[in-house]
């Protein structure tokens, strides 16, 4: 007791119960985090100015050559553009569908549980399994959509979204939406359950339509939930890799080479670790920039309400 009291005296305005000794508890987590996450990020900067190939440790420093190369041959701008389009599709569709489904399921209807399960079910599957399933769905001629088109009397043989420069990116983004909107919906449902029923009742007495209630009462009240969902889907969108890797292999051409896919390809197919690291550094700054901007914008909006 006496020793605790003394430490309590040493740093004022801190309770004797919660001492600085507690910081020792962070050591294991911090060790993992620093060694396998933060330290590698810092190493990226170092590798990005070398011509390291992953095998031979006698590499040279090449200065800014890697950066010049990726900007000159346009790979970085191409991937940034593709990743941003992908992220926008994910954010918009996943949130619109998720919120729409949550609003529909938040009414007093029968069989809510079954519908919720159906919508959430795709989220259980591994990306690799989802990739296989949707490769079949999109397959030309004998795939699910193509055969349905044929059955409906349309030309199913010309349906080949994954082989189209124009549609491949949208096609794989749609797969990601299919897999992720269920989780978004669950979070929206939880948010909607916190909306006070008496507020809605008051609105109904004042003669609000259901749409007005959604727009004027429910949406503003679940703003924190919208914020968290948008942030989560932006992060997921910027990490796009799985379906480019599994379903299209970046193609056709370069049309689905997202940032992460491009980094993986340069590092492991081309064995150019230095150039991949330069790519990663650029991606790192882009991601940080977007995240900071988003947090800034979202926080500001929340205060206004």
């Amino acid at each position, binding site marked *: 007791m006496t020793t605790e009291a003394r430490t309590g005296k040493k740093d004022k305005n801190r309770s004797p*119960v919660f001492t600085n000794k507690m910081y020792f508890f962070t050591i294991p987590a911090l060790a993992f985090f620093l*060694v396998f996450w933060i330290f590698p990020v810092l190493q990226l900067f170092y590798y990005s100015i070398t011509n390291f190939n992953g095998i031979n440790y006698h590499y040279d420093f090449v200065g800014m050559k890697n950066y010049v190369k990726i900007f000159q041959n346009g790979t970085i701008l191409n991937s940034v553009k593709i990743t941003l389009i992908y992220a926008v599709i994910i954010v918009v569709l996943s949130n619109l569908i998720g919120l729409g489904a949550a609003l529909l399921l938040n009414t007093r209807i029968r069989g809510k549980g079954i519908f919720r399960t159906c919508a959430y079910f795709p989220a259980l599957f591994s990306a690799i399994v989802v990739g296989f399933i949707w490769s079949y769905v999109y397959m030309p001629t004998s795939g699910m959509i193509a055969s349905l088109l044929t059955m409906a009397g349309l030309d199913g043989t010309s349906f080949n979204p994954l082989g189209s420069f124009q549609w491949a990116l949208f096609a794989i983004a749609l797969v990601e939406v299919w897999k992720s909107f269920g989780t978004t919906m669950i979070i929206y449902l939880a948010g909607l359950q916190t909306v006070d029923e008496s507020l809605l009742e008051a609105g109904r007495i004042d003669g609000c339509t259901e749409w007005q209630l959604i727009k004027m009462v429910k949406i503003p009240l679940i703003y924190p939930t919208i914020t968290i969902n948008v942030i989560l889907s932006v992060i997921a969108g910027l990490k796009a890799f799985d379906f480019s890797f599994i379903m299209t292999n970046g193609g056709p051409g370069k049309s689905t080479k997202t940032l992460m896919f491009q980094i993986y390809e340069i590092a492991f197919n081309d064995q150019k670790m230095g150039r991949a690291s330069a790519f990663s550094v650029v991606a790192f700054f882009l991601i940080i920039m977007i995240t900071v901007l988003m947090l800034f914008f979202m926080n500001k909006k929340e205060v206004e309400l």
Partner: protein
Amino acid sequence: MKLHHTQTEKESYEKMTPKVFLIYVLIVVFCLIVISPLIIVFSSSFRIPENQTSPLYLFTQFSLESYKRAFVNMNYPQEFLNSLITTGGSVLVVVLFATMAAYPIGRIKAKPARFLYYFFISGLVIPSQMVIVPIAQTMSRMHIPNTRLTPMLMFITCSMPFSVFLYAGFMKSVPVEIEESAYLDGAGLWQRFSKVVFPLLKPATVSTVITQGLWIWNDYFYPMVFISKKDQYSLPVGMIQFLGDKENPAQWNVLFASCILCALPLIIIFMLLQKQFINGIAAGAVKG
């Protein structure tokens, strides 16, 4: 919130007006569109591998031949065991380390604690592919051989940001007074943490186990990069070996059976613990 929930459940259902009927139709059509690929996959997996008729004719044949072949191709018992060890081991360490880290972060009201909080969260935005080159070098420089352990190290690391964020959020709901009285009763720091705080964090632990367990079980990237021996493959990595079969329509029924087998353990767990699953996922985002 619990009270509110039971209240709404007791309330009567909406009467069948045209508007309500329209909502039903909308939901049913939407759900059918969403799960139609899964239904087709499920039905085709029960066909014999040679059956090449259109998969759109549902449940025309019941045979376990495709499953038998998928079971052997995947070396299912071995891969299942590997997935179980990897996921179970990682989640266990994550729960222990993340609660420990969140304890001071959630309790101490000072700058270093707040810094640590944001420091951990910042890890959320970094994609695995971005740092895989230096991570692979770190592993080889630390002489960590490519075994089941290597991806586990990465799973634990990648789970830390979200888990610490979640636990730190939940820590607020554990009353300070309980701990203070434990302190007056002479409980040490570790005792207070393990006997008082940790049990009270159970909802956060459920949420962590579900959200982190789900992605670790399903992740193929780290095992793909770090595991070279076939007998150490987890289920998703085993599936990657079939990527070439995509082009061969003769393999589809077996492939579909493999897909179902790969997802089966999670489907069973989800069916058994549906409520915990849904609440755990929502709590993860709302509480934190």
